[in-house]
């Protein structure tokens, strides 16, 4: 099967043209996210812990009714997390050193700019919509739960009790409502309007303005501006964030960048290993063949030497034998002559 040289060169040029196409914008630099993407600014100092947002979220998403009703505030005694039946929870934090304690904080999906769930999903079941919401598609989900592991905020939840059709459940920023131009359920239901829904850049501007206007009320930090590469759900608080269960040690490296190094090594291994192993194989095989050939030649040489030695030995033996024979003949001749001489002497005397 020989590929004619001309066809081979032609295919090379075709590949070259494809590579030279214009480089996509922002190929290696930072990415600014979708220009029009929305988000929510949550002002923790305003939250009064009435749980109306949980009630709205439950109704809007048709979630099953909870054990305790939403106006029963005794649930706030224990720290809760979201689960397959609850997309958002409000938790109470008693902070004695803070004059406006207790503080309430609402937890739900942060809709990251570079979602770890999307980056880790091997069927791309998540999509970061241009509107900003990170939504999940149950029709492709295999149920491997790597997204639950990957999310640094522990947002996705799983239907562990569902035997055949388990899906991952999480807040979708009420994406269907967004498409109809409505606000997310929790944002609309909040009496204090703690949460502001709008374009992410505007929210950051509003947050900075609020912090500037009330320096002693807010901690000068917008949580979600840079954490894990930035999130669409932003928080401003009157209390340091780590006291409200936020993780402040997550760093600003977006999740996809964490694994891109390792993934980059895969094509290199595919490229190098076969050649390397093939080379080693060829090396060992030729060494083996050479070894075999050397062995054979060594054997052959050994045989020849032995034969040569044997021939020589035979030749020498033959000469020696000839010489001895000649000597014997001479001796015999000499003896015969002496005898003849003796006889002639007897005749003579």
């Amino acid at each position, binding site marked *: 099967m020989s590929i004619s040289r001309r066809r081979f060169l032609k295919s090379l040029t075709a590949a070259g043209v494809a590579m030279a196409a214009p480089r996509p914008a922002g190929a290696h630099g930072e990415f600014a996210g979708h220009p029009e993407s929305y988000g929510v600014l949550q002002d923790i100092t305003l939250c009064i812990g009435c749980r109306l947002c949980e009630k709205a979220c439950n109704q809007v998403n048709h979630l099953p009714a909870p054990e305790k009703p939403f106006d029963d505030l005794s649930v706030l005694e224990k720290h809760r997390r979201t689960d397959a039946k609850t997309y958002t929870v409000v938790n109470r934090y008693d902070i004695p050193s803070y004059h406006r304690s207790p503080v309430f904080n609402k937890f739900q999906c942060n809709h990251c700019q570079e979602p770890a769930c999307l980056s880790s999903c091997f069927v791309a079941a998540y999509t970061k919509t241009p509107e900003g919401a990170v939504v999940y598609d149950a029709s492709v989900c295999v149920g491997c*739960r790597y997204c639950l592991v990957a999310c640094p905020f522990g947002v996705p939840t799983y239907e562990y009790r569902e035997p055949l059709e388990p899906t991952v459940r999480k807040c979708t920023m009420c994406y269907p409502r967004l498409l109809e131009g409505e606000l997310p359920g929790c944002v609309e239901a909040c009496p204090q309007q703690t949460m502001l829904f709008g374009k992410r850049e505007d929210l950051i501007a509003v947050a900075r303005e609020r912090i500037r206007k009330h320096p002693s009320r807010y901690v000068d930090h917008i949580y979600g501006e840079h954490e894990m590469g930035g999130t669409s759900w932003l928080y401003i608080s009157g209390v340091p964030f780590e006291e409200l269960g936020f993780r402040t040690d*997550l760093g600003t490296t977006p999740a996809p960048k964490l694994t891109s*190094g390792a993934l980059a090594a895969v094509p290199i291994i595919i490229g190098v290993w076969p050649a390397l192993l093939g080379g080693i194989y060829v090396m060992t095989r030729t060494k083996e063949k050479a070894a075999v050939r050397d062995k054979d030649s060594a054997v052959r040489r050994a045989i020849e030497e032995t034969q040569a030695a044997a021939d020589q030995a035979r030749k020498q033996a033959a000469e020696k034998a000839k010489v001895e024979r000649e000597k014997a003949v001479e001796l015999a001749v000499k003896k015969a002559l002496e005898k003849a001489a003796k006889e002639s002497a007897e005749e003579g005397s």
Partner: protein
Amino acid sequence: MSEPANPVERPIFCPFNIIAGIIILVGLGITYLRFTGGLGAVTNLDDNNAWGFWIGFDLLCGVALAAGGYTTAAAVEVFGMKKFHAALRPALLTGFLGYSMVVIALLYDVGRPWRLPYPFVWSPGPTSVLFEVGACVMLYLMVLFLEFSPMALEWLGERKLRRVLVRLTLLLTIFGITLSTMHQSSLGALFLIVPSKLHPLWYSSYLPVFFFVSSVAAGLSMVIFESTLAHRAFSDKMDEEHKRAADAVVLGFGKAAAFVLAVYFAIKTFGVALDDNWGLLATNYGLWFLLEMIGFVLLPCFLFVVGVRDLNPTVIRWAAFLTVLGIVLNRLNICLIAFNWQLSPADRYFPHWMEIGLSVFVVTLGVTAYRFIVTRMPVFYEHPDFSEGH
């Protein structure tokens, strides 16, 4: 070279079969519960701990311990060490069965097992490390099947097909080693995405390299360990040439394992230095890390060295067993013990007995299959009419 004289007839109700039978019954019960009550009915998994014993043991440890296949194939086929040829077939068999056990366990852990081919046929997520792991494990399972099939075909007497496959062995071996390198390292890369959940002593950007190097050590030790068990249980199935080669295999692999473990210990130290985690060694987790590194990496390496220098196979066999335990401990550490270390003890995970029960069930399936194959197919001996060598 011929088939051993009188294969020992094995009674049906020997103790092994009875125990295996019980385990399989229990396993089937758990399977029923799993697919009627969902994952929650059978495991202690929850939203904080999505991956549990099945991923930690069956997958991570299963794949690492099944690395014997590619390491032996590399040694024999590519590096041309023909003297280990006797160990090749058992290793390939262990590899093939190991990966089959991994896939079976995966079918239990994944929510919708019938959708496993989706990433490759339906909607690929190439940015995910799991995509790469899934692709390689599936491909490598096929490669192992093809490498295993000559033994089966010899048993079935399919001469023509066997010759085709035998001619492909080199290609399959090289492709197998490439695939193995990729997914052994990518299993480690799975945890690169969660620096906030894995303890800094175990989390490192070197994780893929750690996983690959430790899998080589695991493969070598598993071959030694498996040959020890095989010689004790199935020596009647082995021909003279195989028995004689056993000690050579153990010594050769012991030396290699000593070398790989030493390298592994060194690069793990580099990992600690890279992130300057020296201070953490004084904490409780640091003590646990030192136990893993000293007790289960340095100690087996030391025992291997002693065994190799004194040509004493029993020490090497014990070292191999210790290394296998070390690999299991390392994988469980990364997936269960050092994972979610920042959570309060109440939120931490401990395997449900049914999870462990099912893992034992899957392993028993593997061992039974191993026993079935080894007592019939020419694994430990060369089939008389196919003895023209490979």
